[in-house]
């Protein structure tokens, strides 16, 4: 039972990751794939931030009278990762817009069938 409680956060994060991952690989709509990718990444962020939590700790902003802080390093890493994530999404969506202009669709199957007869 202690194991389940101690790992619950991680398991939920993994579930979310896999849901996002599933959307990316199983869905054919280019916009939805990007949404899935985002969810996948945010779930990884949750995993990282969960690692940094210390029971009974507080946010790592130093203050008098507080002795226990959560680990600031994962926060720093994830701040960077969030930025990287949004950069990827912006670029991906820009590509989707261009693909839509070139093909008139954002469904993978329709795009494939248009490119087939060369």
């Amino acid at each position, binding site marked *: 039972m202690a194991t389940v409680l101690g790992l619950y956060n991680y398991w939920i994060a993994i579930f979310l*990751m896999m849901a996002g*991952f599933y959307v*990316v690989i199983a869905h054919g709509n*280019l916009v939805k*794939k990007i949404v899935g*990718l985002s969810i*996948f*990444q945010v779930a*990884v962020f949750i*995993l*990282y931030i969960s*690692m940094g939590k210390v029971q009974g700790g507080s946010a790592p902003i130093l203050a008098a009278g507080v002795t226990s802080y959560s680990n600031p*390093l*994962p926060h720093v*890493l994830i701040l*960077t*990762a969030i930025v*990287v994530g949004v*950069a*990827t999404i912006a*670029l*991906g969506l820009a*590509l*989707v817009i*261009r*693909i839509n202009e*070139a*093909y008139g669709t954002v469904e993978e199957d329709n*795009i494939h069938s248009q*490119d087939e007869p060369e």
Partner: protein
Amino acid sequence: MQLGQHLPVLQVVIPLLSAPLCLLLRNGRLAWMFTLAVSWLVLAGAVWLLLQVLAHGTVSYALGAWPAPWGIEYHVDHVSAFVLLIVSGISAVVLPFAGISVAREIPADRVSLFYTLYLLCLTGLLGIVITGDAFNLFVFLEISALSSYALISQGRDRRALTASYHYLILGTIGATFILIGVGLLYMMTGTLNMQDIAVRLPAVTDTRTVRTAFAFLIVGISLKLALFPLHLWLPNAYTYAPSVVTAFLAATATKVGVYVLLRFVFTIFGAAFAFQVMSLGPILLVLALLAIFSASTVAIFQDNLKRMLAYSSVAQIGYMVLGISFASLTGLTAGILHLFNHALMKGALFLALGAVFYQLGTVQLTQLRGLGRRMPWTMAAIVIGGLSLVGVPLTVGFISKWYLILAALESGWWPVAVLVLLGSLLAMVYVGRLVETAYFHAPPEDDREVREAPLSLLLPIWILILANLYFGIDTSLTVGVARQAAALLLGVSP
């Protein structure tokens, strides 16, 4: 102020700073010349660094003056110095070619943006190779990745867009896997510095978490370096990208991927864990052989030559990974050597195709009939590059294959040696098809005036071709450095 002492960081910061400067240059030609100058400067730095490493051993640089596990460290050893040289060298040769090629393939108002992204891509690749910090590696990986997506999407064919999109999706999945792996490692060791992780890992090595971290890192990196069967993004991306982009990325990006694999497997996890506990050897061996045979076979049936060479790249990555899978000194030497040699071959071949595209506007095999007489210098370069790809003596390709076979025999795996030879036969078939069409078929009916490519395109191609021949004969530099790098990774004396 000692500039030499800051060389490791300048190596990355100079292109990084140049990128925004380049964006401010509205004139495309100016942007090109600026990028060219920066790239040559970077090459000079890389040569200097390699000499320093050869003379004094590993160079370390603390960013922000914070000591290693607390701050980010730049760590240059034989392996990274060698790969730095490959990346900056290829860039320095490709850029002179870019001048008129990019001007033709990219709309004028986007040329300076194009070079901005090119510089960012160079920055990212250099940053990956030089860093000694696992998370910093992820950040620079994304810089190089995002800029490559944008560069690839600039191909003329609309399929460049979908190719770029797929690369973005798969590349991001790969990067996220790497992020998960790094996170798990950090969780178990409490540090992000690679050397420091390596020191602290043995204490926790026998945990399921570390094993999972290993698996995620290997899968993520394999996606990035296009190891079979995770190579699906590569053929389209290389086929539809602008000529210069294909040549640059084919010669550098996957090489950097292989470097990351080496770094994680040998420096961080250590050969003992990777090959004895996780039995990485047989897995890589099988995948490498599958890559060689399936991709070479597919290459034979391609009519688009860029696509043919792209599949050939997948096969060649197989050779590099094959060398690594032996986990022996000779095997690793062969793998690292092939990084360099393959960069020379594919750089030259893709540039030559770029020249064909510049003159013909197409790289379909059927359009190349009789081109041997009309573009003699370009086609001669393709023939020599192709022979190098096959592994004919006096070319670098032969040296790579020689060491690979040597490594296979040393490990007592003679069937693998036979398979390497058979793989070369397949390469002979697809190169042969190209040569036959260009030299032994009559030119097409509509007799357009097709002339030889201009000198500014031919010169870079031939520099690489001559390098193919030179390093195929005088191997003291390449084999020497590769052997030292391999010894360093394995922790044995060369």
